[in-house]
């Protein structure tokens, strides 16, 4: 079946099947590799994308369910100012180690800061509760999101 949706601001018309997840559609058929497969159970968050601006785990979404909706990945936010502030903060604050969880974490953090430009540390932790990182222990990720909030402010 054919579906049509907006991917990173551009219209995408693509062939899929009812039992293909959004994750597999993005990676296998649309070449969007920033979205990662870590568990296929919605537990690790490495497959996080923004669906109409909200973070969701794409491994739990059937591709046809995004018909006429907006899907955003980090590829679509390269020029975005807020994402730029996040990227810089992550890079400079040492929040990136192996990088596998990074795109998912950035999207969760991006969605948080878009809605809540001055979050508390607890709010930052809550926003990435569904993104498991085994490398950093989260310390520098939390710092970087708080840092990005300040950078975006100025």
């Amino acid at each position, binding site marked *: 079946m054919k579906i049509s949706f907006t991917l990173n601001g551009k219209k995408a018309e693509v062939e899929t099947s009812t039992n293909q997840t959004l994750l597999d559609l993005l990676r296998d058929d649309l070449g969007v590799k920033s979205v990662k497969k870590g568990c296929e159970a919605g537990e690790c968050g490495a497959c996080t994308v923004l669906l109409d601006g909200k973070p969701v785990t794409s491994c739990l979404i059937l591709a046809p369910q995004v018909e006429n909706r907006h899907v955003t990945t980090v590829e679509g936010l390269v020029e975005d100012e807020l994402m730029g502030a996040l990227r810089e903060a992550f890079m400079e604050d040492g929040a990136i180690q192996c990088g596998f969880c990074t795109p998912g974490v950035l999207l969760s953090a991006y969605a948080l800061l878009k809605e809540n430009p001055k979050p508390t540390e607890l709010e930052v932790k809550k926003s990435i509760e569904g993104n498991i990182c*085994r490398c*950093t222990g989260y310390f520098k990720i939390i710092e970087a999101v708080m840092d990005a909030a300040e950078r975006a402010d100025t």
Partner: protein
Amino acid sequence: MEYDNILENLLGRSQFLVVGKSVVRADALDKALGRAKFTADYIQKGTIVVKVVRSTQPHARIKRLDVDGALRTPGVHAVLTASDVPGLNQIGYAIPDQPFLNVEKVHYIGDPIALVCADDEWSAMEGVDAVVIDYDPLPANFTIDETLKKDAIHIHESGNVALTSRIRKGDVEKGFSEAEMVVEETYETPFQEHMYIEPDAALAIPEGREKVTVIGAMQSPFLVREKVAHVLGWSLNQVRVIQAFTGGAFGGKDDTGPLVCAKAVLAAVKLGRPAALVFDREEVAAYTPKRFPARIRYRFGADSDGVFKAAEVDITLDCGAYANRAPFWLWRQTVHAAGPYEVPSIHVDGRAVYTNKVFGGSFRGFGDLAMHFAVETQIDRLAAKLGMDPIDVRLKNVLKVGKRTTSDQLLDHSVGIEKCIRGVVEASDWSHRRESRRIGVKVRGVGIGCAHHGISTSRGAPDWSAASLILNEDGTLTYRTTICELGQGTPFGHAKIVSEILGAPIDSIRIEIPDTDTMPNARPTHGSRGLTLGGTAAADAALKLRQHMVKVAAGLLECDEGSIEMRDGRAYRKEDPSTGIEFKELAQELYVRGVSPAAYGFFVPPRRFFDPNTGLGVSYPAYTFAATVAEVEVDVETGQVEVVKIWPAMDVGKAIDPLMIEGQIQGAISQGIGFALMEDLRLENGKVLNPNFTDYVVPSSLDTPEVAETIIVEEPYKHSAFGAKGVGEPAIISIVPAITNAIYHATGISFNTVPITAERLYTVLKRSEQ
């Protein structure tokens, strides 16, 4: 060569340009943009999907293996078994006890038997389901006690004891006779699963009929090459191994790398087309090698002043189905048995035994984690009996320059543990926190954990590393190492060393991803050796290249070589900085004049020797030391433990990049918190019951404690670039006992096992009240 004084002696500088400063790592941007390619990201459409047919029995003979049904499944191209292995069907790491594909017998639930190669996942899974295997079940040994019984069935022909270890130092009888206080306990540490977020993966691509390329997640490309070539029966130079960016490894992918790559390669070579094997989370959690469970009986004696007199340690390592890393794990555990303290008399006896479970393998900290959990808990118990502060007992016995380790190795320099201890005691306001604090149902406690961890491969195996460096015609640099980027940033650390030595801007140096076809062997990325050994090979290459560049520059600038300074991509005269030449021009001059623009770096640390009878000798070239204080808060009504704050300290030799060091320490702390409080792999009759993130609980962001700034102590190691020692592992070793000792302080309960889940703590607290 004394590499620790490169700055003053060889570069003639007093200030670092880039070493010791926190710099944005080179791969960070690509990772933030989602453009860094991990193994699965290389897989194209049309690649054969490989799935593994695995044993459902913990111990059985294979009576019949029928692949016909699988072959007839639509979409299935081949089903490969042991009879399809052209070379050696043996892939054991050190002991040849592990068939690549099992055909006669299986030894654990998950043991690989066949490979289904199909068009897509769906067909592959159908194919797996269609394979018929008739087992002849055998009695299985699931525990150490079961497998050591006199009449226990032999899991391998050689018996159930894979190997042994020993230390005989001093006179323990005399030592114990002088000990006023003796504490004897038995500790049991469980499996730990790495749960790296990127599942294991390999993509193999045949290049003609006699060469294959495999891209995979791994830690030692040349180990993978060796194992793959053996399975194929090919020469080493017919196999090209490339390490893609790897999404977390922590030791695990050092073991799975060869196993997964060899399977993908066999499929690709047999079918003549690209084939990929990607594990799903269940496979990772249930079937990949894990931290070895261990049982340690520890008898420790001290005099009334708290001075350690003797120790008797008995270690039983539970290997699971195959020995794998056991020889190294047990040996390392054995020579660290006294902890970072001097114990004049010590006997250690160790053995590694087979059981019918998933097998043990590398994991951050190796056997040192279990051993320090035992030792550090013993010390706190001793301290309590002696009525002494646990810090004082430690400081009385801590290793210093001139003292000797468990294996009687004399430490003649680079021992920073005392500074680490004193640092965290002060930073955490230890004595104040040691006063009892209870508010309502919450009780706080503070504890310390100390660690030492030998750098490099164990068992005195000859260790060395190599790297290559090329100055391109435009003045940029290409650096090559097969030390793998696993998240820890080690290759970037090498680049910083190169940058420091050459005075080349860090972003003019490109680090190529490991490729056995084009790079010298840096040897494995494990044992915290990536920077100490790998980085020193980088230094060697850079120093050699520097010589060539300085020579040409001196000629062009008409001065002595000693007057040349290299900095910011420019060579100039020290006395007249305005007279200089950009690297771009200098490079061209090298090319034009036929002066080699490339260098091969090689480094071998001092040889180590030990006596196999006594276990005594030089075990490791250097040791990294760590001390961590943890404050916990216990909810006595529920048994829940929250880690409130952590104060870490580490003697890193020389901090090449403080930000990356902190990142490593913090990540290790998180894994240690998981191990101490929540990670619990449950098995029943050899079957893993919770192979998923839902029920194998690792810390989430909300479990993150406060962390103090890491106290970085620098006691440089003479024989490595700038004196750097490895940092990846000691932090996990010290955090676990810091937490368990803090719980001891808070509740008076000292645990001999982990994880200390809420239910376990609650149950013990309740019992102790009655």
